């Protein structure tokens, strides 16, 4: 794949043109990645509204019927319920890891079993998130489907 970049003086909006012969898996993946960087979610923090880039979200969790969105170093409250977020973010590299939490696959550092048989994922910012064993297969399959094969 060839990447051509052009710096044009006076260009107000960044444009991306993808030229391809066939709309294959690689092209679709590129389009999805580009679209992902341009997708946003609304969140609030201390009464102020923010637009959060989806690719910046590390994970989202539901606590006492409230949904929280976590980025590298900030937490936002979302008006959406977790199941709504799951539906919206499924195509964007997010996977459900427990009944109350979804995680961005791109920020996973590792996963480990704890002494009490619980599972835990470590994110690239060092944060740790609990994983339910019921959802272990979801994570495995999410990686497999994103890589374009299944076991």
């Amino acid at each position: 794949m060839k990447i051509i970049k052009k710096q044009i003086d006076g260009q107000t909006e960044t444009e991306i043109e993808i030229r391809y012969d066939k709309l294959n898996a690689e092209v679709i993946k590129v389009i999805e990645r580009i679209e992902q960087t341009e997708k946003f979610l609304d969140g609030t923090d201390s009464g102020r509204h923010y637009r959060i880039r989806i690719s910046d979200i590390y994970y989202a969790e539901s606590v006492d019927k409230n949904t929280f969105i976590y980025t590298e170093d900030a937490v936002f409250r979302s008006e959406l319920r977790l199941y709504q977020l799951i539906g919206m973010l499924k195509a964007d590299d997010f996977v459900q890891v427990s009944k109350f939490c979804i995680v961005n696959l791109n920020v996973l550092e590792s996963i480990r079993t704890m002494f009490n048989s619980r599972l835990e994922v470590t994110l690239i910012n060092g944060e740790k998130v609990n994983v339910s064993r019921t959802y272990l297969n979801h994570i495995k399959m999410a990686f497999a489907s994103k890589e374009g094969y299944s076991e």
Partner: protein
Amino acid sequence: MKKFIRKWVMLFGLAFISATIIPAIVNRNWEAAIFVFQLLFVLLVICLFQLFTDKMSLKISLLKYVIDLVMTLSVILLFGWLWKWYEPSYTWMMFAMVIPVYVVGYFLDIIKINKEVKIINQQIKRRREIMREGRKEKFNDC
């Protein structure tokens, strides 16, 4: 290997049911067949309960195994007492039969989870390498 063992055990189960039911029909003696159906029913109850505990998100995962064991023993003791599977003085035998099976199942489960964790860690590593290479390519292009 896993598929082979599963198929083998499943065939054994079906053959066992068939070998009990067919002679029962032919000889019109349902004593043994009734026990097989009772056992099937008890296993169904246990499996349904485990399906429920699997869906529960318990803070302490080990608690799930304890609940499963207590529930399995309770179901077997209750239905066993109801259908007179054991004499009250031999109740300990039910424990002796259930606990070893459960402990083996627990360790098989742990092995399976550890195997899945290992696969996921490999997938994470592979993805991080791909992302790093992508970033490097982008940097070189600049």
